[in-house]
């Protein structure tokens, strides 16, 4: 099960925050195939947002094939976004941890590291980034 954090001042539509946080949980393995998402009632009770917003987010996740509604039972995870390589004990993560430690030793602050990583990602994932952009534009 997962708990959503809604930031009303973020400027990101509330249903998209739910979509993003669900995907993040799928990537990190907090949610796995067969897991049940909280019901709309549980989410709105905890967050005080409109129930339709939760249903809209779940429809979007359903449309992307990530979850499926089972009438009368709830909404269940269909597939994971987790990749073994990105797991907590994966070699890529260990390398990244080592690199971040070196960056800190070199005197870089949190924001400096984030900016550096973002700019390298931008550079190395040019085509990927463009594809994601189109995707989000198509949705809005």
């Amino acid at each position, binding site marked *: 099960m997962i708990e959503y954090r809604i930031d009303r001042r973020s400027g990101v539509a509330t249903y998209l925050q739910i979509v993003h946080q669900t995907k993040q949980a799928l990537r990190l393995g907090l949610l796995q195939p067969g897991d049940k998402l909280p019901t709309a009632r549980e989410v709105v009770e905890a967050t005080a947002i409109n129930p339709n917003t939760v249903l*809209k987010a779940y429809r979007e996740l359903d449309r992307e094939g990530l979850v499926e509604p089972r009438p009368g039972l709830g909404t269940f995870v269909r597939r994971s976004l987790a990749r073994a390589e990105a797991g907590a004990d994966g070699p890529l993560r260990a390398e990244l941890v080592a690199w971040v430690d070196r960056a800190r030793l070199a005197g870089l602050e949190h924001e400096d590291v984030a900016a550096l990583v973002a700019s390298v990602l931008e550079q190395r994932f040019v085509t990927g980034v463009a594809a994601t952009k189109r995707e989000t534009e198509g949705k809005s």
Partner: protein
Amino acid sequence: MNDPTGGATALEALGLGKRYRRGWALRDCSFRIPAGAVCGMVGPNGAGKSTLLALAADLLKPTEGAITVFGRPLDAPGQRARVAFVAQDKPLYPRFTVAETLRLGRELNPGWNQSAAQRVVDQGDLPADARIGTLSGGQRTRVALALALGKRPGLLILDEPMSDMDPLARHQLMGTLMSEAAANGTTLLMSSHILAELDGTIDHLLLVDSGRIRLAGEVDEILAAHRLVVGADPGDGGPGPTVGHTVVESRRTGRQLTVLLRPEGMIDSGWEVTEPTLEELLLGYLRSPQAPTLFTDSARAGHDAAVAA
């Protein structure tokens, strides 16, 4: 989705008006709230919000026009059981304890749901033997809400429900209300001064101002019909961004021009164009009493008949 019950109407007003000795508090109000909506009613002090809510709760009789709830007049049999009203001053018996107040609700309401009422009271850690008169304003609001929700109404009307509550209690109670709407499809109609309290919570909007309805309908649809346009002021001679559009509000700050408008087609390039937030939209309308009204299709009285015809 905006009409989750497939077109049923929770509340409809036709030519509704109410005159007090000092004049008209409400005039010529026609609108519709679909069943299952979470509708926020906003407007300045003295706009007629409380009058409109009291008319809907059948506590006042209209001077002209009529209101129906779930398609039937308010004095039809069984209507009282379908509507719950939490008034601004939360009238309760101060000498009663919390438990006695809930018992009163149980004895007076045939469809009473004790667990729904008890849940709201328990959430606030209210001792069952505490007298209402000794409770804080926020705690009294909680008991009043427990009474209203124990009734399991189809339509729950709340007049400034959260005004005297701390942020935590407000969040909890809004969560309780939303969960009620999600689980039972309860239609909620609530007035509030606190615009931030409504954002993200309501899906329908009624803007009441000077005794009239100025905006009515789905929040998403109303927001999508507006744009906030910001740019350099072209001065008196130059063509502004507003040509050909319906202007709600136009403000100048130094060389900057900020316009809230309803676009009719493309907006000229060279302007920064965004969809307004709910707060920006409402403030824009409240500052501009002359701005034209807007009703979405589902908010127009007689919507059902129009669909059937």
